[in-house]
């Protein structure tokens, strides 16, 4: 019980801080819409090329954007926790009896909620542009976005809080972001790639999440691809939770 109420307090505090920052809210709402409107039309053309996977262009493009949102919507939250650490907030919270799981969990929950709301906005905009999928797909899509969001939020906190420096954290995020983005078929499906690139991308776990979600959007919710995708996303979440709590506990070492 204490764990839940502590998590709730940390969650609400984070949410209040976000809501008092209108610029930031505006950007996070606009981002998915910009992607759809500025990149979507391009993709409609690409969809005509041979080798483009089954399903209409939106069914291929939107799952990729959702995965991207889950990862990059939360990958930078670490900057916030460095600021909190620097202003002494982390130490102040660590000296309370609050569960260490709650201290990171409440923050992760906040980031997850935001990323799910962004996902909903993205899907709404995609509907306007012509995406037609059943509700069950929407639910699974948002679930996967939530899993990834939670995982990368926790990973971001863990990395940032152990580095404690924006100058070290920023290049680290970039180092991971580029291969994840390029080798996962998030923006363009890997079926368009030459053979060697496809093999390399198979080693990228995120690629399997994207493939899984594309299967869902094709209506194949009960497919092995979907299962693999969800399991990989869950794996990231477990890794994130484990590392996150470890780093929080290490703060008092």
């Amino acid at each position, binding site marked *: 019980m*204490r764990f839940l*109420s*502590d998590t709730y*307090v*940390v969650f*609400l*505090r984070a949410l*209040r*801080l976000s809501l*008092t*920052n209108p610029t930031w809210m505006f950007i996070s709402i606009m981002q998915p819409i910009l992607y759809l409107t500025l990149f979507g039309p391009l993709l409609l053309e690409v969809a005509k090329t041979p080798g483009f996977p089954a399903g209409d262009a939106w069914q291929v493009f939107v799952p990729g954007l959702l995965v991207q949102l889950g990862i990059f919507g939360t990958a930078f939250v670490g900057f916030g926790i460095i*600021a*909190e650490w620097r*202003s*002494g*907030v982390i*130490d*102040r*919270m*660590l*000296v*309370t*009896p*609050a569960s260490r799981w709650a201290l990171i969990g409440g923050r992760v929950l906040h980031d997850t909620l935001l990323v799910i709301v962004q996902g909903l906005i993205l899907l709404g905009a995609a509907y306007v542009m012509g995406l037609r999928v059943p509700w069950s797909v929407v639910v699974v899509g948002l679930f996967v976005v939530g899993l990834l969001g939670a995982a990368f939020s926790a990973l971001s906190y863990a990395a940032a809080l152990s580095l404690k420096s924006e100058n070290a954290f920023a290049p680290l995020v970039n180092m991971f972001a580029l291969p994840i983005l390029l080798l996962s078929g998030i923006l363009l499906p890997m079926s368009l790639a030459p053979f060697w690139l496809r093999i390399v991308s198979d080693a990228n776990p995120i690629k399997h999440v994207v493939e899984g979600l594309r299967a869902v959007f094709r209506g194949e919710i009960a497919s092995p691809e979907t299962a693999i995708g969800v399991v990989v996303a869950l794996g990231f979440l477990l890794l994130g939770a484990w590392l996150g709590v470890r780093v929080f506990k290490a*703060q*008092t*070492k």
Partner: protein
Amino acid sequence: MPTPSPDLIVRARGLKRVYKSRKALIEAVRGIDIDVRRGEIVGFLGPNGAGKTTTLKMLCTLLEPTGGEAQVAGCDLLTDPEGVRRRIGYVSQSGGTLGDALAGNEVVDHARLYGIPKRTAIERGKALLAALDLEGIWDRKCNALSGGQRRRLDIVMGLIHEPELVFLDEPSTGLDPQSRANLWDHIRKLRDDLGTTVFITTHYMDEADQLADRILIIDHGEIVATGTQEELKKRVSGDAVTLTLADAEKAEVAAGLLGELPGADAPIIEDAVVHLHVPDGGAALPAILRLLDRNAIEIAGVAVKRPTLDDVFLTLTGRSLRDEAA
């Protein structure tokens, strides 16, 4: 888990902390013993880098000791850190509020992490803010507060759950004299009304002198002195006696005579002025005057100065007095 001695709220033995920096090992705290009785206000003094913050962080469960053991507020520091956390308050040297957050929200959220209901937190928060002259900041962003206001907000947050023991790391840095006096009053009231034990570090000698019941002095990671202000002052330099003679020619003779007094150090001559230290200046003065009178040395002026805590501090930790003695 009861402590061996129930009236000791802090009992640390051999507490030690070594920081691993890139190459060097920094021995910040070198195996210190600390005893604090329930209801005491203890002043923890030491020059910059002496190890005060490190010690406090260890006692507050924020930093694992490299060695040693401690019971804090009845709980074992190493095996029951959560028990310690529940019973203590801590105000860190560098503060703990986020600039973008509203002051009132930070106070309430902090209280709720101690399991205090929201309504109680608001009530207590407002009362505490008022007690420290901070009415009207509830809806202000923390970075819109002045340095001293923000510092007092930190203190409010450290006290919000009415802990039985509170660690204050230089709480009065940046406070104007009036706010400082107000803070002292509040700390005394805490002790008198709630029986709160206060462990406070400070660089202000007058603060330690007036507020603390007992003082610990730490230097280079070791406790170099403990005791009440009076005990420390007696122990160290003794009183300074300054005699101005009517005739500078007699200074040598006077110094020779005075150096024979019980407990006196070697007098220093400066023209017609003779400086010396004796254990108790007030009691020694009649004997000094009689001695000089008997030898027909005329005195133009006398001054006796009681040592201040500053003198004690300098003697124990500072270079200046050590260099003089050498």
